[in-house]
């Protein structure tokens, strides 16, 4: 099982933080979601390979909101509770594309290296 940005006090690496940001942006791109659903969705899509710690998720959401990549709104959820829903902004969509390209380039590069080593 892969764990992202685990314990509370350990500093997060830029790569992991950037990756989490990418995943969040990707998940939210389809439909506005609240924090809990974002965490669940990432787990589901990755077939439970990735588990997101709340200690990293919420600060990441607020960071993205502050950078203007996400917009937040309080709405009633499907369970009838008040929840904070996050929507992708225009800038967020651009950022998503940029990061997706970056990630693919990086992933391709890494797998090339790993293959050649075999």
């Amino acid at each position: 099982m892969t764990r992202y940005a685990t314990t509370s006090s350990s500093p997060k690496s830029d790569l992991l933080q950037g990756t989490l940001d990418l995943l969040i942006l990707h998940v939210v791109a389809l439909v506005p979601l609240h924090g809990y659903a974002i965490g669940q969705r990432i787990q589901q899509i990755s077939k439970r390979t990735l588990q997101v710690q709340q200690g990293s998720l919420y600060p990441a959401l607020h960071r993205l909101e502050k950078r203007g990549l996400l917009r937040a709104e309080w709405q009633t959820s499907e369970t009838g509770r008040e929840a904070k829903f996050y929507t992708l902004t225009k800038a967020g969509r651009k950022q998503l594309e940029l990061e997706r390209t970056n990630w693919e380039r990086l992933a391709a590069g890494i797998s090339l290296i790993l293959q050649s080593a075999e």
Partner: protein
Amino acid sequence: MVRLFSRIFRPRGLDPQIEKELQFHVDEQADRYVEAGLPRDEAVRRARADVGSIQHIKEEVRDVWTWRWFADAVQDLRFALRTYFRMPVFAVTAVLTLALGIGVNTALFTIVRQVLFKSLPVSNPEELVEIDCNAGPGVTGGRGTCMHSYPAFRLLSERHDGLSGVFAFAPVPNGLIASFHGRRELITGQLASANIFDVLGVGPAAGRLLLGPDDRAGAEPVAVLSYGYWRRAFAGDRAVVGQSLILDNRDVAIVGVLPRTFRGVTLGEVYDVILPLGTADLFRAGPPSRSGGTASLLGSANMGWLAFMGRRQRGLSDEQIATRLEPVFKQSAEAMIAPVPLDVRKHLNLTAENIRVDVRRAAFGGASNLRRTLQPTLRVLMVIVVLVLLIACANLAGLFLAQALNRHREFGLRLALGAGRSRLMRQLFTESLLLAFIGGGLGLVFAQWIGPAGFTLATDDTGLRAVNLEPDRWILAFTAALSVVAALVVGTVVVLRVSSANPQDALRNVGVAASPRLTKAMLVAQIAFTITLVGSAALFLETLTNFRRIDVGFQPKELMTITMDAGLRSVEASRAIEYIRHATERLAALPGVRAVTYSNAAMGTGVPMNLMVDVPGFAGARDSASSGEIFAGPGFVRTLGLTLLAGNDFEATDRANPGSVAIVNESFASFFFGTIDVVGRTFALRGPGNQPIRIDGVVKDARDRGVKRPTQPVMYLPFDASKVRTVTFAVRGENAISSLREPIRRTLERLDPAVGIARMTTVDAQFDDVLRRERLLAALGVVFGGLALVLVAIGLYGMLNTMVVKRTTEIGVRMALGAARTQIAWMIAREIFVVVFLGVSLGVTGHMVAARLVQSQLFGIEPSDPTAAAGAVFGLIAVAAVAVWAPARRATLLDPMTALRNE
């Protein structure tokens, strides 16, 4: 205020939003668990556990939105304020302790900066130099041929290679009597060459300053007023410029006023008026000349009475300038000795060959008498105030530690709730900084009051007038730096203690620091500094006592001295003689007066003149045959209470033939004759044509120059009013001499309108005045030492008290098992033995170091004298015993059953 800041830096209502968002998360997750079949409460618990530390997430999120440290700082500050409001006694004690420590340090720093480091308030002060010259060894009187005479200055002002300008100045020795619209006042005056303000770069506040023509011989006398005198005597009225002021019975035109910032070229010496050097002969009497009257100062090449200063040319060192000036001083000296026959020159070793010029930076007023005399005292004071600050810090750290122990639970709880350790430390530093700044602010206020008060005690009002003790940005910076240092010292100690706190222990409330080692260390430090301080205080007290115990050789009680002003010098000889005769008679006739005499120096203030004498049969070196000379009136020995060892006192009849008899002191007799049995022997003042003087009486040595200076050979010669016009009356009363002050004043002032009183004081008061620095040091030592002892007592008491409370259960068990009460008391007392022992040993070492630092201010006691240290140790142990008694007694009086139930 704090709230305002936090609103600016953090979006409104952020915290509740985050909480709501996280609560939603927990609720949703709990729903899932319920769906999976868990009971509701278990589901909620699991959901919460999944989220982890909500506190921590909140902090992280807050971090995203705010300028973190500032928000934290604001929060810390609010928390600190709340904490202190909950324990006001602690906060007030801490603030006052710090205010005291910082206050005395700030006050002293203000004085030190003014006296030791401040530049003169002129343009480019670093360029100013003092120029001095030395005639080299072997010449009597030190300076010998190298005279700072007026002709020498004239030559120097024509040829001052290496200096862009040079000026000369000298004080008017006994002050001037100023009359303005009928008001008479004794003021101070300085003679200065007219270019002084050009060279200094000082402009007028009103009117004009001195100009070249003012200096010419026969010019109309003019005066420039100092700002202080202008405000004091003329209420700052600009209309006085152009009016005339009567100085020593001469009309002098007021031409201008100096700026407020200019306080003279010599630190600590302010003059009310500046007069052009060209008028020196009007205001400063030269030596008596053979023809009667006085010689001209301006014309005389062998009267050195001036000081020289100049402004250096860029890029030249002191030595380079000195080398360039040397030929000028040699030429002056050669011109001066030219009329002396060659063989006499050889005999007296008069030569211009060895003349050396000394040039040194004057920016700090190095020639200042104030600086010279205050420097050693200030050094010692620095030692004292630094000790006070250290004690305050140690005490404060102890207080904080005790407080930290009480707050152990709070800290543990915060750690357990996920607060970072670094955050906790910052909180503690914030708390100590807050206290330190409040204490520092108070200290600054405190310093405004004790600075001038202390300075007045160390010098007198004139000294205070000469320096500016108002705080400036340097003082503020110093106080702030001191506060920060104090906060860091205190904060570090507490953080060391707290950061080792284990949250679990704290929460379970077990094993709460049974041995607060840091508290003990602070107490050890406090005791050590206290011993050091009290030890020095003991040395100062002993010094003061030793001075008081000195046999001054005359009777200082019930004795008043009255020095007359320059008015007596300005009248004709016959009028002066009449004045002295009448004054003596009328004073003697006053009820309550036992005897009256007069002399040319107030007893105990100095010997006006030292002269070379020729004594037949004297075996010592010719150059060493010098003696002090005091002119004394009839009844001198009787009135002052000198001890006549042989011969007679002066009588009124001696005046008939002055200069033929003398009374000498014991030192004189034994130095020149090797015996005190010298009545009837003769000697002569060195010089051609001087008549032999017969010794008519021998007195025991008296402290003519004051208690602080050793006795020397002195000859008392009959007062000759036709030559000597500096008169001090001495009046001995039956009792309560102070009550005679007014009758004496009225008697002397009614006699002659031209003559006034310059100074009037009892000899007792004058002695106190001479010892003012010793008294200051002793008083400060006693006050601060006492305070330090009280603080130690409080510290020890607090430590033991806490210990007794903590070990109540243990004591109960021991007593239940049969321990005797004495054993319990011993167990408690033992705790502090180590602390006191270590503190005392360190303190004695500290005392030995400090004693050597304060050596310059000691008299009659060696710095290594063990009694001072012993006294300090004894005092501390006594204080410790008192502090220990109450907690130890409380422990022994514990009821075992109650103690056991305490748990």
